[in-house]
């Protein structure tokens, strides 16, 4: 382009940031959730596949994971869901103090979930090397736990940024996208809970 063509499309009036699903970061995270959700589907499918091969599930009736801890996890996850929903509504108002406060709340909930999961896994009557059932249960719970830890760290780091600065407008979008991650964790736990805790109990052949 040696000389400037006559016509131009002037975009200087367009906004320089966006805080909703039109943001590029939002899209990137959605692709990431698609990837991570696929890994969950794979591990659920692995569980179902191994189930088909094994007449006695779990091997030894008494070894089933206790309903209490999984259900407590489910309850806390539902609290996380509600908390995220309100945090996101607040984030849309673009006021920094409540955003900080809500992020800290989510970090605390994340820590509770991690603690619960630790108790839950410790209470399992089998180890990952006991049998294939043990392997798949441990890996499924572990995969979800890794995500909880990662999401808690993400929220904690973002909260720290919001406290010590420098804070920019784009952090609003970061806060909302972190909320998406929490939603994702809730969405992955519900089927996991049904698969591991409910189906073997109430859907026995």
């Amino acid at each position, binding site marked *: 382009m040696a000389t*400037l063509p006559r016509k131009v499309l002037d975009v200087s*009036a367009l906004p320089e940031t966006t805080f909703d699903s039109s943001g590029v970061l939002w899209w990137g995270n959605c*692709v990431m959730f698609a990837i991570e959700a696929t890994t969950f589907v794979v591990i659920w499918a692995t569980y179902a*596949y191994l189930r088909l091969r094994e007449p006695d599930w779990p091997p030894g009736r008494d070894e089933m994971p206790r309903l209490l801890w999984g259900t407590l996890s489910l309850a806390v996850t539902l609290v996380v869901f509600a908390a995220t929903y309100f945090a996101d509504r607040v984030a849309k108002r673009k006021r920094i103090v409540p955003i900080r406060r809500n992020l800290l709340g989510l970090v605390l909930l994340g820590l509770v979930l991690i603690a619960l999961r630790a108790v839950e896994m410790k209470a399992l009557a089998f180890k990952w090397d006991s049998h*294939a059932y043990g*392997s798949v249960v441990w890996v499924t719970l572990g995969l979800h736990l890794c995500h909880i830890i990662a999401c808690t760290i993400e929220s904690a780091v973002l909260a720290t940024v919001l406290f010590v600065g420098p804070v920019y407008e784009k952090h609003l979008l970061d806060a909302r996208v972190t909320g998406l991650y929490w939603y994702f964790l809730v969405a992955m736990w519900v089927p996991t809970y049904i698969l591991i805790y409910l189906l073997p109990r109430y859907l026995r052949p």
Partner: protein
Amino acid sequence: VSAEPIPEPVVAPDHLLPSSEEADREALERAWAHPKGLRGWLTTCHHTTIGKRYIMTALFFFALGGIEAAMMRWQLAFPERGAIGPDLYNQLFTVHGSTMMFLFAVPVMEGMGIYLVPLMLGTRNVAFPKLNAFSYYMFLTGGLFLYAALLLNTGPDAGWFSYVPLSGPAFSPGKRVDVWAQMITFTEISALAGATHLIVTTFRHKAPGMSMGRLPVFVWASLISSLMTVFAMPLVAMASSLLAMDRLVATHFFNVAEGGDPILWQHMFWFFGHPEVYIIFLPANGFVSTIVANFSRRPIFGYPAMVISMIATAFIGFGVWVHHMFATGLPQMGTSFFTAASIMIVIPTGTQVFCWIATLWSGRPVWKTPLLYVLAFLAVFILGGLSGVILASIPIDLQVHDTYFVVAHLHYVLIGGALFPLFGALHFWYPKMTGRMLSETLGRVECALLFIGFNLTFFPMHRLGLMGMPRRIYTYLPETGWATGNLVSTCGAAIIFVAILLFAVNAAWARGYGALAGNDPWGADGLEWETSSPPPPYNFLYLPTVRGRYARWTAAPDQAVVTGMRTDCREILITRALDAEPHHRDILPDDSWSPFVAGVAVAVTFIGIIFTPWAFVYGFVLIAIAMTLWFWPRRKDKHPRHHEQPKAKDLPRDPVHEDTLHPEVV
């Protein structure tokens, strides 16, 4: 798919004079400048640099994989040769297959996408530049790790699909298969990261007016292949992780004795493995369409049919994996569906082949090297497709399973379907990447030699397979009658070697002495030809706009360009996903150490896991630190956004109250 007309451009205001053009250029040069030296090498995040790096690294691994192939052919040239022992031979064929699939074919197609897609879309960089740099480091680490292991005689030796139980802890003690599993993890992370930013770039960085219905065919191909990557690669990443866990911490996913199942491995691997073929083949398909249209001097025949065929291929591609497992004794009723699906692939592929032929037939073909490669592709790939239809039939598959017939088929589809188009594409876009033309004469010789050498090498394998020669044997007896076929095959491999060598010579020579290319040596369509060769780091002085499916061929004489972008920082224009209406502007991050640091953290973790499971725990901490550094905002915002700008009445939604965002104010 139809598109809204682009917004009516406004007449240039006073301040846009040629003098301001010079000022804009200088400002952009400053904003997009790479640091020099080692720092520049390790911090750069620009897609042309990373793309070229991807391509060069993948070609390097291609050469290594080729050397392994040559060694195998050398061993098999005569019966009962002792040049290479069985143990080394096992490592060679495993590393050859793994290299060609995971370190060459997938990354090279991704590298071409990383280089070309932003240029074709008329933008300045990919959507997530740091992720792009990170994905390269993952790919490089995976490759170097595999080869370091091979040199230490710890090369994987259970085949490129590492079937359990052979690859399990009982039959493959030692670290060899662990190396394979971690190499897979590295390259899958790389491919997934690459797919993520290519998808978002394609949807959101398009030039104004480039609606989905006007996307260049190659961008469609790259998009579809990236979407396939998102849903296919997690399978193999998960499979390799489960295998690694079986081997390292004694889980029992694939251990029959404890309720596991080896067939599970095959399902997981091939649910990824077959889409993988299309992840490689679709971008190649995009090369073919681009080259055929440009060298027939006409738009591609049947653009919608072409795009729909690619989408159909992607969907059907996920429903054919069991045809790799016909010999495992799965229920016949079930497998027959997979036969049907496998044969169904012929419909979209055939549609595309007819569209290419129709384009050539009705155009005015210019018989340059890229088009010659495409012709070679058509011949070879159609043969490969035919043997594919044959293999989809269960009775035949059971006869030739694990024989050289399969080896012949897969090389016909992969070399035919990917390598020939790739070489055509490299000849086509080399001038854009380097600013110089490859030698046409040498190019023709290369193409002819590659075609002859390829057929000489792989055609006899069909017959060898039908005669019963199994794959993966390091030698054979003279009485088998396989000697002639193998000798011919080895001679063919020598010719391929010469052809590839000629290409390397051509590329090296042209880098310094080739004729200068100028912006557009081919009279080609596509926005990448709108800018200089090689493109500047900001790609376009003014971002282009588009008013038709063929951005340059349909451009108005005074086609509008985008102005009003900031030039003092790395600002890009974000458009809407479907109709590519300008939506907002965004600032990309500057060059950064964080992708390299994160790459090192992940590398240390995954390599450490082979030696102790605790590395997972240390690694988690290490990666968390690296990621925190990655996302931590810079102390001083070098490019504060302008809030005082007047905004058009319908543009701003929810104007931000700046005062609420600064901690000291609150």
